[in-house]
């Protein structure tokens, strides 16, 4: 007589599956000592060079868009820290087309977790922490050199900005991933707002013409990650469309990005299950 399969109550917590996968990825990355070390070094160098780009401009032009070099430190530090940390967690999302091709996405369907969460936790890019390190260093320098009124408001703003910024960039990566289901070679197009967004975040948005302000201020709200908090912390008024008090609205921007991201992801997976394969 055949035995019915053993039914047991699930062990561990809801997080157990994700932690197991993440831990294994971290171990795997660290096991290739030499390769990992060189990747960390190159990520570090990349961080330096990105800063050099900003520095060269401000070295020649003392004040740009109402910001001087010290303010630029904040601008760069905030935007790059949040972007790099977002990349650590979800940077691997741009390999989605490869995963689809290899059938890994099908394997995800066979596991009892939501697809997006599986995808997000399927990898973690530890080497990009080196880039974040450079950005954090610049940020710290900026926080020290600038004349900031250090009260509870400033601290809260900083916290909202950092957490919100990481979530905003993370959400943008998820938007890009959702679109990959529709576009062949979609990466080319999504680069315009993932890496384009990160690039725009590093610039003083006051120099943008109005359409660009709306694009990178509200549609793809990367200005919330660096420019708005910078002028708010420094007590500057800010240009017409982007007043400094908007910096407190970062959570709203985050919610907007994630609504868009989850929508695109859902449409994308529906498309994969309905018309693709």
């Amino acid at each position: 007589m055949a035995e019915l399969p053993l039914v047991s109550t699930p062990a561990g917590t809801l997080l157990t599956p994700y932690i197991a996968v993440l831990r294994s990825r971290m171990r795997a990355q660290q096991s290739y000592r030499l390769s990992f070390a060189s990747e960390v070094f190159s990520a570090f160098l990349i961080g330096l060079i990105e800063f050099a780009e900003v520095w060269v401009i401000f070295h020649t032009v003392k004040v740009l868009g109402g910001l001087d070099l010290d303010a630029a430190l904040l601008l760069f530090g905030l935007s790059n820290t949040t972007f790099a940390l977002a990349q650590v967690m979800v940077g691997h999302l741009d390999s989605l087309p490869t995963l689809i091709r290899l059938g890994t996405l099908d394997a995800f369907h066979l596991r009892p977790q939501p697809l997006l969460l599986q995808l997000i936790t399927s990898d973690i890019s530890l080497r990009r922490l080196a880039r974040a390190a450079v950005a954090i260093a610049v940020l710290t320098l900026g926080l020290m050199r600038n004349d900031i009124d250090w009260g509870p408001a400033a601290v809260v703003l900083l916290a909202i900005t950092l957490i919100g910024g990481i979530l905003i960039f993370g959400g943008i990566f998820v938007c890009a991933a959702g679109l990959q289901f529709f576009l062949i070679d979609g990466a080319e197009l999504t680069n315009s707002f993932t890496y384009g967004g990160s690039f725009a975040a590093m610039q003083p948005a006051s120099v943008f013409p109005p359409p660009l302000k709306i694009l990178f201020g509200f549609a793809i709200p990367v200005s919330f990650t660096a420019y708005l908090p910078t002028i708010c912390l420094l007590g500057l008024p800010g240009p017409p469309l982007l007043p400094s008090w908007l910096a407190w609205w970062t959570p709203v921007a985050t919610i907007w990005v994630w609504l868009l991201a989850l929508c695109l992801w859902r449409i994308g997976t529906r498309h994969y299950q309905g018309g693709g394969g």
Partner: protein
Amino acid sequence: MAASDLSDTIIDIENLTREFTLYRRNGKKWRRTRDTLTAVDGMTFRIERGAAVGYIGANGAGKSTTIKMLTGILVPTSGSVRTCGLEPVRQRRRLASRIGVVFGQRSQLWWDLPLRESFSILAAIHRLDPDITRKRTYELVEQLEMAETLDTPVRQLSLGQRMRAEVAAALLHSPELVILDEPTIGLDVLSKQRLREFLRAERVDRGTTLLLTTHDMGDIERLCDRVLVVDHGSLVYDGSLPGLGATVGARRVLVVDLAEPTPDLLDLPCDAELLTSEGDGMRQRLAFDAEKTTAARLLAAVSDRAQVRDLSIEEPEIEDIVRRIYESAR
């Protein structure tokens, strides 16, 4: 689990249809024509708990598409499908705990990690109790003889070792239904045998239902008690294996190597037919219907006429069977 979940029907497909829209360039640069490809066309069948079903058909006949719809990867265009009593796409996550799937061409293991780690991650993913996991892993490793490969990174395993690992991985959480998509492809004879033995034992010990797509008649013969034949998206045969042979009239071929040049062996008993004669009659291929005679009797008849030095038997090809079925169904 609710009482209704313990129903006996593991797979219930009714009028299942799946169409794909293809865009083809018709020569002109900017114009594209729309074409509808019907991969699965109105399929209906049910599989009860504990059955072992072979699912065969030519490449592109719609097998993989059906499996994707059974497991929640693809949504049907029309018709209904229920796996383990659940709707695959809507209740995908619940279903995932109850089924195990082995894709022959794709891996569900972690490529760069030791096999042991893949198992522990999968145990965490299915949130299995550690004690049960330990026992189960030990069982699987024993029966599939994987003890020496546990610490090897998956990418360094041979195909045979990897397939056994994939099967173990799919069975780790003791699913009710196991679907295998071409699991023995590329394996050597010994590995195939081991795998078949193991699957048969699973079925006997745990009542696991098996659904197997394959191009290998040996798999069907040794594992399955029911065969579904699909051609161009439609089910053209649903029954037992002997019945299949009978329906199709597919013939086995006896190849005899004779001691010396012999004239063509015509007029053989039991409707056996000479197919070819090579090497001046030294090697002759004789087709016979397995329903009408046996290889032994045919061999005896040939030995009466000539001295047989060596012989071999060719089984009917799946493609051949499928083609014949399709032709007879028309």
